[in-house]
């Protein structure tokens, strides 16, 4: 068992990284530890625990900004925002239950490090789109800042966004500033049934390409649809509308007209709609099946549903799509990841595939993140090295060797 160090303040992080560098010891960076099974397995000499580096340091609702230390539980942030009728608009997925953990257990640092936005990604952007400012300790043990607390800011390279999705490999974030937004007053979901993958892609494209301001567009084929709350046991397209009541009602009628070529639609009201999208966001259909390897693919939206269907047929797998078809959650029947088959099938439409859940052995022998071609691989390695030249931080989490 590696030793665990508990950081209480940013200086502790500086001291821990500096000592690790001087002693040639690697560090695993950990928040609440709810997603440690996501990524390649890290074998580090020391665990640096950031869970005590907690607390919201600034929240100004009328300025749409919130800053917090990286170990702050996401639950605390979401609860505080909700009190002012606001939210994290990127709708962060809560994937801990996929790994057998408790719901809402993650920290702000993990939320940014994994950049796992939910269904509203298509309209509101990713975690990185809402990451405004950063204080972090580099692999050199230096505390630096970048960005700020205002949305419009082009002063220097945008390092806060680079940290989003970097899985703690560039530095140890100590404090993060996010843009926050008002929570929609209400929501509804418009549902279509019995569509083929191609028709589903076209229906979602028509909806997202209309002026109805759809904020969620998912497609679940038959066996998976029934595991989403309120959905029938048939291929289902789900389209979410959010906003002020009069606007949602008007857009629901507009959307129904847009969807006439795709068959009759059903409307789900606010409460069932909210439950449905939480399940889509958190990949509920594949919770409770820890033995099954799970992929997350991002591709061109129009290609997604058919690609998912092909992979399901080839691999005897199950899948559903979010992001208008552009995000595929693919659950294989067993622990084997079938990486070559998945990535070869993806190549035609482009994008990336992440082996989101698998046994440690499978994640150690498979490229968990999309393999990078040259010269991008070398450039990426140089960027990592510019922050962490000795490779102390989360070595191996994203790519073998660093």
């Amino acid at each position: 068992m590696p030793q665990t160090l508990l950081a209480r303040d940013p200086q502790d992080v500086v001291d821990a990284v500096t000592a690790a560098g001087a002693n040639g010891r690697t560090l695993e960076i950990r928040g609440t530890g709810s997603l440690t099974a996501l990524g390649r397995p890290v074998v580090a000499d020391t665990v640096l625990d950031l869970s005590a580096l907690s607390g919201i340091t600034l929240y100004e609702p009328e300025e749409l900004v919130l800053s917090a230390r990286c170990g702050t539980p996401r639950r605390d942030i979401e609860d505080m925002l909700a009190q002012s009728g606001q939210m994290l608009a990127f709708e962060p997925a809560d994937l801990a239950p996929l790994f057998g953990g408790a719901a809402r257990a993650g920290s702000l640092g993990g939320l940014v490090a994994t950049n796992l936005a939910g269904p509203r990604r298509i309209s509101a952007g990713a975690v990185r789109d809402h990451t405004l400012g950063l204080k972090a300790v580099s692999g050199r043990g230096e505390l630096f800042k970048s960005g700020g607390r205002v949305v419009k800011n082009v002063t220097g390279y945008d390092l806060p966004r680079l940290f989003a999705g970097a899985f703690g490999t560039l530095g140890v974030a100590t404090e993060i500033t996010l843009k926050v937004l008002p929570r929609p007053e209400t929501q509804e979901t418009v549902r279509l049934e019995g569509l083929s993958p191609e028709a589903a892609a076209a229906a979602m494209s028509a909806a997202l390409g209309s002026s109805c301001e759809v904020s969620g567009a998912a497609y679940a084929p038959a066996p998976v649809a029934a595991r989403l709350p309120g959905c029938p046991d048939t291929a289902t397209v789900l389209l979410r509308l959010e906003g002020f009541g009069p606007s949602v009602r008007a857009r629901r009628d507009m959307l129904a007209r847009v969807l006439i070529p795709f068959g009759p639609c059903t409307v789900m009201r606010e409460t069932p709609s909210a439950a449905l999208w939480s399940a889509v966001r958190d990949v509920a259909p594949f919770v409770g099946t820890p033995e099954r390897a799970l992929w997350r693919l991002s591709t061109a939206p129009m290609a997604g549903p058919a690609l998912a269907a092909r992979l399901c047929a080839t691999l005897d797998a199950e899948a559903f799509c979010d992001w208008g078809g552009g995000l595929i959650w693919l659950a294989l029947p067993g622990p084997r990841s079938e990486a070559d088959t998945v990535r070869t099938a993806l190549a035609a439409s482009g994008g990336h595939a992440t082996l989101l859940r698998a046994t440690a052995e499978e994640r150690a022998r498979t490229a968990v993140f999309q393999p990078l071609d040259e010269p991008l691989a070398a450039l990426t390695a140089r960027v990592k090295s510019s922050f962490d030249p000795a490779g102390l931080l989360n070595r191996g989490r994203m790519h073998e060797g660093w």
Partner: protein
Amino acid sequence: MGDAGARPHGGPQESTAATAEESAEESAEESAQQRMHDGSHDGSRLVMPAPDAAVLARRDQIVADLARLVGADSVIAHERAMRPYESDALTAHRQLPLVVVLPATTDEVAAVLKYCHDNAIRVVPRGAGTSLSGGALPLADAVLLGMAKFTRIREIDTANRCAVVEPGVTNLGITKAVEHLGFYYAPDPSSQIACTIGGNVAENSGGVHCLKYGLTTNNVLGVELALITGEIVRLGGKHLDAGGLDLLSVIIGSEGLLGVVTEVTVRLLKKPDTARAVLVGFPTSESAGDCVAQIIAAGIIPAGIEMMDKDAIAAAEAFVNVGYPLDVEALLIIELDGPEAECAHLLDAVTAHAQACGATTLRVSQSEEERLGFWAGRKAAFPAVGRISPDYLCMDGTIPRRQLPFVLARMRELSHRHGLRVANVFHAGDGNLHPLIRYDANAPGELEAAEAFGADILRLCVEVGGVLTGEHGVGIEKRDLMPEMFDAVDLAQQLRLKCAFDDQNLLNPGKVFPTLHRCAEMGRMHVSGGALPFPDLPRF
């Protein structure tokens, strides 16, 4: 927001150009690590990196080599023909480049960059040259790499809600290419008729609709990027997010220091059904600021909220006669867009908030013509100020919105101290402030005073929790103010990232960062001799 047709920051000034060149020569002996500037922010004495005499001596050979790579027709080497490239929209600073190259393909861009890399020649990339911060200012020993020939729309894919375009396509050109399909490209810098998408990527350009629709970084899905080595990388595409480190995040807004963008995939949005605007006047900037805060606190994110102060209102009204009230201290233009039902609902709410905050005038647009009229004054604010003042300097800071009354009050004091007037336009939704400092370049000392005033305003922005630049970029204009916002450690980390892309500092040197540096020096680890004990942290 380079307003096309405006004359920001002085006119042609031979004396300024000469001073810049002299300064460059004076510093020829300086080592690369040396600070380029003496510390005072004084644009007319801006110090750029010393030209490399060896490169200057090889000019004829370099011109011939480039002609071989891209064809003689694409190389401009005569002084008179290079003149149009000697500055961007920050016209107080001028410098002829070594040579201008206008490649037409990605392969040609790669070949030029590789040649420059192999021969240690500096490169300054250029789009349309509308930068207000001097981002495309040439260097005497650098190849000016113009992307003006990259004007093709490569693909319009409305099914996937994106378009693939070359970097020389103008911002408005993208919208023009897709509007017949009902789509548009959201970021709308006010120079959008002239500025190119490649330049927008370099500067992370904004516009008046950022609050709801985001900046360039939120609306670009992917780029093809030529590195200084001539290698080509693709970042992003029609899919969302990155499969590894999100390098696209740092490319956008990198001001031409990391690579040259040769293709851009942009996100397209469906044009909203309706747009309505409200014009509201307030007796104080405080009450206008309160109104903005109340609207946002009520959960309403308007498509745009613009504020103008009394001087800007007067200048705009005198110029375009759109019926702005002249007896108010602050004027808000609040735009709402979306389905008809949403606009109607929100107009009622916004009107109620405005009245509760003490609005003295309030007009809701009743037609598209009237809405555009509300905007006409605001969009003409820069040239309107240019009309009543021989010259003006357009600043670009961002502040936390609630600091606006304090900042405006301090700005009035600074105005007295520097003896210059200032008009303010403000993207009130996102806190982006554009003070327009009025001066006369022909009056001795006024340019210097205007620049000193501008620097004081930007320091004030940082002091209240804001930043040096919201959307114009650092360039050369705010380069020497970077230490006001960042300490040496912060800047060193930024410079190390630069080295990961450009290890010889050949791409756009002298921009953004106040010091030059050698990458080998930056990469050195400063670790104390022996092993350190673990720090005194709780351990398990």
